């Protein structure tokens, strides 16, 4: 059963990745990265239960904090300046 849950999470991560590839703006990519972070946390938690050693939840805790800090960092370090422009190659599908 845990395998079903982790399969769903993997599918969701794959869809999030697709959004990160497609863009089209930087914000969409940050959003996708943020969602992948959440999903990775859940997957690590589920994996811990699946392998029968749920004490590894510390890792999931670190992931929550780190993905939050890095999301904030994108917005603060780059400011509004560098995110405003649409990446031109994302629209043309060049990637």
């Amino acid at each position: 059963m845990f395998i079903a849950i982790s399969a769903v999470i993997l599918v969701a991560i794959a869809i999030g990745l697709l959004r990160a590839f497609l863009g089209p703006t930087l914000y969409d990519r940050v959003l996708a990265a943020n969602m992948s972070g959440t999903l990775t946390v859940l997957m690590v938690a589920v994996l811990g239960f699946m392998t029968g050693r749920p004490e590894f939840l510390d890792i999931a805790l670190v992931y929550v904090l780190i993905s939050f800090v890095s999301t904030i960092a994108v917005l603060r370090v780059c400011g509004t300046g560098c995110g405003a422009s649409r990446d031109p190659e994302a629209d043309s599908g060049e990637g």
Partner: protein
Amino acid sequence: METVIYILSWIFLLGGAIFLLVGAIGILRFPDFYTRLHAVSVCDTMGAGLVLAGLMLQGGFSLVTVKLLLIFYFMIFTGPTAVHALAQAALQGKLKPVVDEHEQQ
């Protein structure tokens, strides 16, 4: 009693999985950035919350439950903050929302 908790935990886990999937489809299918924010919130709150609740029931009352609660607590604060900061940055970056053309006229 044990079977009830067991079944309940699986209901939570499956429900959470459904919410996660719905959120993921949303982030792919919604037309613009601002609508996609909503899809992510579904993942962050209901999806994550239900999966963690299901795991808590599986883990029983132990240190594991405390850690899961902590994860849930962190998530419930970090998710909306990150999304709010993102939305504000997007607004300041002059990202126009997609609006229905009929309503605009």
